[in-house]
């Protein structure tokens, strides 16, 4: 297979044809922050946190395939500040109360906020009124914590392919709705997967929680993305 040569912040990298910038970067030990992206799901390009710059143009690295000779800017200070802005936007457009959230320590949004050293957001809090849907047997859907990444929409389907989660409304009112009839048939394992696929604490397994002690959670010891960066110099 022909290899594509490209650079990230000047560092020579290689990619397979059709590989996205995010995936190719990962394979080369370079971390590009992502939130909506999830291995095995079709990229959605919804969070825009993976925004990179190529020849002066901004693009989402999770949806953009690498092309020969591409010079990707990933860590330019202004670019990193844009990413931090987007993370902050997510914090102000929802109601995120980390200390009481079951996903704390495993939450990718929280992980990104720590990595980007967010102290307090530059934007005013919007304090939206959002609802919790606990009518489904195994799961509860807390829209306060939802970041509209669409991972559940893309990744959790019924056996016949029908969507269990779908977006309703539009614009700032957009929110996730769970199909009650289909969700009622979710198995224990499928419910677990729905919770795992959610990067934040919006989809939670009911009646079980806080099982992992502090210190054993995903991001307790090293910032999000560290696993990818360990590959550097390989």
């Amino acid at each position, binding site marked *: 297979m022909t290899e594509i040569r490209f650079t990230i912040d000047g560092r020579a990298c290689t990619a397979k044809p059709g590989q996205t910038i995010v995936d190719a970067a990962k394979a080369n030990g370079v971390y590009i922050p992502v939130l909506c992206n999830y291995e095995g799901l079709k990229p959605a390009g919804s969070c825009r946190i993976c925004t990179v710059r190529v020849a002066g143009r901004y693009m989402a690295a999770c949806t953009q395939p690498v092309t020969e000779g591409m010079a990707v800017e990933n860590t330019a200070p202004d670019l990193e500040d844009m990413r931090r802005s987007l993370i902050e*936007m997510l914090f102000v457009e929802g109601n995120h109360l980390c200390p009481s959230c079951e996903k704390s320590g495993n939450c990718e949004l929280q992980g990104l906020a720590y990595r980007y050293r967010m102290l307090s957001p530059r934007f005013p809090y919007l304090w939206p009124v959002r609802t919790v849907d606990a009518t489904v047997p195994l799961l509860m859907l807390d829209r306060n914590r939802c970041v509209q990444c669409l991972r559940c929409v893309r990744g959790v389907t019924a056996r016949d392919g029908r969507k269990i989660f779908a977006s309703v409304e539009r614009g700032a009112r957009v929110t996730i709705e769970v199909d009650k009839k289909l969700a009622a048939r979710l198995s224990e394992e499928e419910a677990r997967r729905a919770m795992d696929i959610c990067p934040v604490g919006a989809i939670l397994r009911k009646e079980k929680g806080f099982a992992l002690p502090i210190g054993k959670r995903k991001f307790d010891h090293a910032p999000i993305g560290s696993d990818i960066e360990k590959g550097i110099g390989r």
Partner: protein
Amino acid sequence: MPQEKDIILKHPKDPEALLDVIRDVQARDGRVSDDAVGRIAAHLKLSEADVRGAVTFYHFFSLAPRGASTVYLNDSITSRMKGRTAVARAFEEETGCRFGEVSADGKIGLFPTSCIGMSDQEPSAIVDGVVFTALNPEKARAIVRGLRAGTPAQDQVVAFGDGLNQSELVRAMVANNIRKRGPVLFGAHEPGAAVRKAAAMTPEQVIDEIKRSGLLGRGGAGFPTGLKWEFCRREKAPQRFVVCNADEGEPGTFKDRVILTELPRLLFEGMIVAGYAIGAKTGVLYLRSEYAYLRPHLESVLADLRKDKLLGRKIAGSGSFDFDIVIKSGAGAYICGEESALLESAEGRRGEPRDRPPFPVQKGYKDQPTTVNNVETLATAARILVEGAAWFKALGTAQSAGTKLLSVSGDCSRPGVYEIEYGLTVASLLEMAGGTGAKAVQVGGPSGSCIAPAGFGRKIDFSDLATGGSIIVFGPDRDIFEIVANFMDFFVEESCGWCVPCRAGNVLLRKKFDKVARGLGTEGDLRDLETWGKLVKATSRCGLGQTSPNPILTTLKSFPDLYEARIRKGEEFVPDFDLAAAVQAGCTAANRQPECKESLHD
């Protein structure tokens, strides 16, 4: 209810029919009930959540009742400039309900809506699918009384507009307001000439002719049309499609309305020519819901074309070229003018844009190579084929060949459509339209630029002021802040909500702008507006968010003095929250003065 069954079951069991099914249910019931959601989902093998997703995405669909009759009053800036506030009040007084509500007897619902393509005859409204233009409070009251008395909206239209607006199949009070006829769109055209000419050429020759003409897309983006067709033709695929984007939703634009009314044959010829060029058998006209009143007229033109052997099998004696056109309707969503969102909508889903690549020429309608072209682009292409590339190239400027159809509205004595040659200055246009003395001109609608008099020497073409054609004139007494606020409200309402910067960023920009407009801004707030605006533009997923901060950014540039005068210079921090105002009601009730006023804002 056996009737309910029919309305849903008569549609094919194909998810692509989703919007058509919802439209029928909405039209009959004034809503899509839980019960209907369940039945639609079962019929189309979709999840109920999916069906709700589609219903709630489109402005003209609703889960909650919208009334036996529904009034959608245009909320665009031109509507406001021409007296919308008084008209809205009249509607509210006469129905006894507020906008966003349904009258107590359930008979009439009042709802605001984004620009409906009538900016040259505002205030306008759509009542049960029927367009009412040039409204005033008396007319508004009469409409409500008529509806209450059982007179259908269509029967309340007594005087029809000019041209084909009067035809039996349109019967609309809409006026064409064609102010300047240019040589391309309004030049003499022998019906069928473009199709016959194409059929006598090879597809490659047709593409080459369009390429040599220098035709650039008329929707606003300005992509070379011939190149788009060539890319599409080159893709190997079982089938290809031509899609005509008749979803002009940019506030202030209405030029495609006039083409669809008066020149549909020319437009369809353009689609047929495009189909021949790229090797398609099917064309889709995606018609915005606001123009649904033109659908019977358009269908009848298609029927005529079939009779004339310009559509159907072996077109124009070509021996092998089969092509037909279907019409698909939108349901109220500005974003569907974005080509990939349009395709999603045409396939029966929420109008959420797709990621590119793949581009529509690679994977478009039904995942097949598709050329999506604007109404005006296709009509122009038909004329180019007849008159030749050289003829077309001689019009306009070196980089911007040909003519452009502009929709001019606002504070001018001759609002309407103008077919002008590229290279015309804003000042010359203002003179033509009777808008001299303007304080500002909005070129390209909210997503375009707001130009101050110092920029009136600028030219309308692709190298200076590229525009889809919306031109709104603002007279000396207009408040720029009110205009910007209206435009930002529009983008907040019309964002699809998929990506973070557009969904949240526009809300935050709108709030920050409001702080400045209320006189609570600082120099820091102006810097924030600029930085946040650039952030939203740079990181948004599609053209909506990539242009939505323009009302703020271009007025900051064109009218810095206005902003400077509004802010509190030298003050480091002024809170957004006005405590005195917040406690005013309580203080009034307690019969005392707010004590916090001094410390916070003065």
